[in-house]
């Protein structure tokens, strides 16, 4: 019972993260930065 509610909380937290624009903007900028680094090397 306790384990299932913990799993539920973790899943909902993960869903909140993955649907948060505050997560995707830094991720996109980081990817862009890594690509830029590869390009200018």
């Amino acid at each position, binding site marked *: 019972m306790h384990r299932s509610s913990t799993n539920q909380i973790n899943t909902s937290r993960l869903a*909140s993260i993955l649907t948060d624009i*505050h997560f995707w*903007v830094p991720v996109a900028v980081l990817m862009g930065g890594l690509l*830029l*680094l590869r390009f*200018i090397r």
Partner: protein
Amino acid sequence: MPPAAYTQIGSVIQDASRSKKLQLLGILSGFAAGAWLGAAEAPTKLVSIGISPMVISLIMVIGVFLARWSLPALILGTSSVRADVRRAPHLVIWALLAGCLWAVANTLTIFAIRDIGLSIAFPLWNSNSLLGILWGFLFFNELRQAGWRRWTGVLGGALVMCAGAALLAVASSTAAPAAHSLRGVWAALGAGILWGTMYIPYRKAYLTGMSPLSFVTFFTFGELGMMATLAVSYLGLAPLWRELTSARDVLFWLMLGGFVWVIGDVFQQYAAKYVGISRGIPLSNSNQLWGLLWGILVFGELHGRGVSTYTQVIGGSVLMMLGVGAIAFSSAIGKEQMRWKDAAQRESQRYGVSADYVEARMDGRQAAGELKPSRSALDWFLVAVATGIFAVFAAMARAPRLSFHWGPAAVLSAATLVLLLVCGLKLWRTTRFH
């Protein structure tokens, strides 16, 4: 008037006074951040032998890693870090992300300086403050309902600071721009964008109530992990190890630079927490002014240069101080503060973090029922290990022979230490470092 109305008025006045106190604390933290981030350049100036910039960056990050674990352990104890993470575990992801952003930005600046020189590169990546203002406005309700005077103060101040930074960078540059100028411009702009975006995780963490001292302990894993990956992939493991061993005489100075940088960064985090990123970033960017003071007064840089150089230095410094002043006098009050609280409430609901905790921490207080931070044997162990590592490298270090002026060094060190004491004490008394 009924007694209940008196109580309500009293509470409103108390809230306003607390909020003003926190704003002043954030501004003071921004000034202290500028001084300490600028002073961090001093130990690195002692390193003049030909070490790869990637290795210099990696060693500084190792010093940073040690400081980011030992300082929070010393100040609040790791139990406080653990308690913060239990309340808002999702923020660990943002801390790691911010660390990765910092490491990639720092590496891009190395390429930017190589390709277009510091004079062009610095103002380009200093534009991070403008991006910070944009993110703060878009995502965290900063400068909403702030009025045109505050908008002018913050945006105008940041622009004036960028102009001042450009003049200082032109004055302090010694090398002419090399080839690959377009590549260098992209690298500098990229660094500015990465650094400007790095403040999204900062602000998110502090609106949710996490202590800056907890955030930096996870931030540093992203920072060290990404920096080590970049260094190994660029240089290869064996050449990297060879460079590290051949540079053992100067490793201490670079690690010391990293340590001093962390103190500045911790103040920067408190500035971002209490005045927001739109004001905190430009205030911390005054580090360029302090770095130049160390360079000119202590290391004799620009010695023998013409009148035009000194005019640029004075003009750039005055512009930077005017910009800092404009931002410092545009602190958030009234309606804007309410919009910050709306943003904090949104975070609390989205991630299921207790509203009382978020509100208390935004107000720089401990939440009800929260245990008082205490240090354990593990904390003293972490402090002892970090101190031991620094002592070993200090024993291996050699003082390089270069022109060093002790008088100005003592004055600048004293000013920086005074800021540490004043701001540290104020943070302790007002927020207990929350």
